[in-house]
């Protein structure tokens, strides 16, 4: 029987690096803010949720930050786009690809030849293990023991893989949670070294990739989650 996870906290992050800085947008605060409002409006983002910061130590630190109510932030910089969402609903999760499409669409219009160089998605969660403990779940993941080190409280594992057909490089990490007492920490980092991606497909594939990898380790993540 696989160990079932009871999610208590989950975060999805993304950073997309542009192929070249979008300097055509320098000084076009209105265009940037309008683009972000159009993409994030359906999630309740209004003008008062947008913060412009331009006094950074260097040009790459000029940012436009949108606070998405109750969920997290989306950040535009001249060399990258980033979001971090926490404890989102299933409906919000399912809308992320459309939101990403919206965030990219206005840049494609405003910047000639705009394209990304790479993308990085990172997902992590802290959860309890149903009817068991993290130590039991970790025993199935990493059974190595260090006799000289004392008595094991559960050993984590890090798996680094590449998926050449998708230009993916992944890192799956499983360990005792440092933040949720008696919990399990799982993180998946997915780097895509190609510019053009289908966000909906990547989110779908990434979710299946995580579920399949965890299943091989005897762990079952709730179906309704990322």
């Amino acid at each position, binding site marked *: 029987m696989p160990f079932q996870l009871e999610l208590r906290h989950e975060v999805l992050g993304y950073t997309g690096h542009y192929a070249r800085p979008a300097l055509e947008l320098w000084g076009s605060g209105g265009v940037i803010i309008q683009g972000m409002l159009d993409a994030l409006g359906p999630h309740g983002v209004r003008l008062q949720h947008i913060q412009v910061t331009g006094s950074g130590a260097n040009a790459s630190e000029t940012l436009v930050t949108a606070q998405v109510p109750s969920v997290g932030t989306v950040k535009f910089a001249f060399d990258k786009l980033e979001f971090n969402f926490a*404890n989102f609903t299933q409906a919000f999760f399912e809308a992320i690809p459309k939101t990403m499409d919206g965030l990219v669409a206005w840049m494609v219009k405003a910047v000639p030849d705009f394209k990304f160089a790479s993308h990085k998605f990172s997902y992590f969660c802290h959860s309890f*293990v149903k009817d068991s403990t993290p130590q039991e779940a970790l025993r199935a993941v990493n059974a190595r023991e260090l006799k000289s080190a004392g008595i094991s409280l559960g050993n984590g594992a890090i798996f680094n893989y590449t998926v050449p057909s998708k230009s993916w490089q992944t890192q799956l990490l499983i360990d005792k949670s440092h933040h949720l007492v008696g*919990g399990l920490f799982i993180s998946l980092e997915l780097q895509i070294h190609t510019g053009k991606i289908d966000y909906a497909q990547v989110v779908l594939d990434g979710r299946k990739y995580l579920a399949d990898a965890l299943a091989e380790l005897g762990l079952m993540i709730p179906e309704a989650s990322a």
Partner: protein
Amino acid sequence: MAAQHNPWGTVEDQRPASRTSPRRGERQNYRQPTPSKKAHSSVFPHLQMLDDALTELRFNPFAAFLDAFRDEAPAIAGTEADLLPTILASIDRLISPDANDGDLPATEYAYQSARAVVESAYGRLRDSGKHRATNLPAPIVTTDDIGGVKLSWQRGDRHVRTSFAASQGMRSYLYFESAAEHAVEDLQPSALSSRLEWILRP
């Protein structure tokens, strides 16, 4: 937090790497990111003070790009002043008890089970937010006559006792008792957490 240092140094620095003070760029940090502000207040309510202290950093728009504040944020677990660390220390002592007390040492199996289940049960109790784990009475922690681990909590006429088997194949169980009811249950973190909530009820 674990950090993997680059033992070969950087391209421009071919000297053997120092064992101390690697530069930030040479580190490969394994860190478990600190839950967000929202998560602090809803999932970890006991962290409100820490949360407040970090608010300014959280709203620093550079922070997420630089990822700096996450590296510096203190771990959440263990910051609450509850009894869990003391209980875990009591369980630790069972591995090599004072010979004068005449107690048997706990077996490694019982020790590992007790530590894992108690930690997870207290984590669940904390996470539920219904009761503060700080209100729980301290349990009595002992071994049985074959190296199993026993913990018992009492509040008023309510008792909760756990017995962690000395070895695999033997049964671990949870027993609870009050004036009105008593029963034996399987010893799982969720069951212990529920019974500790029960003992706290008015």
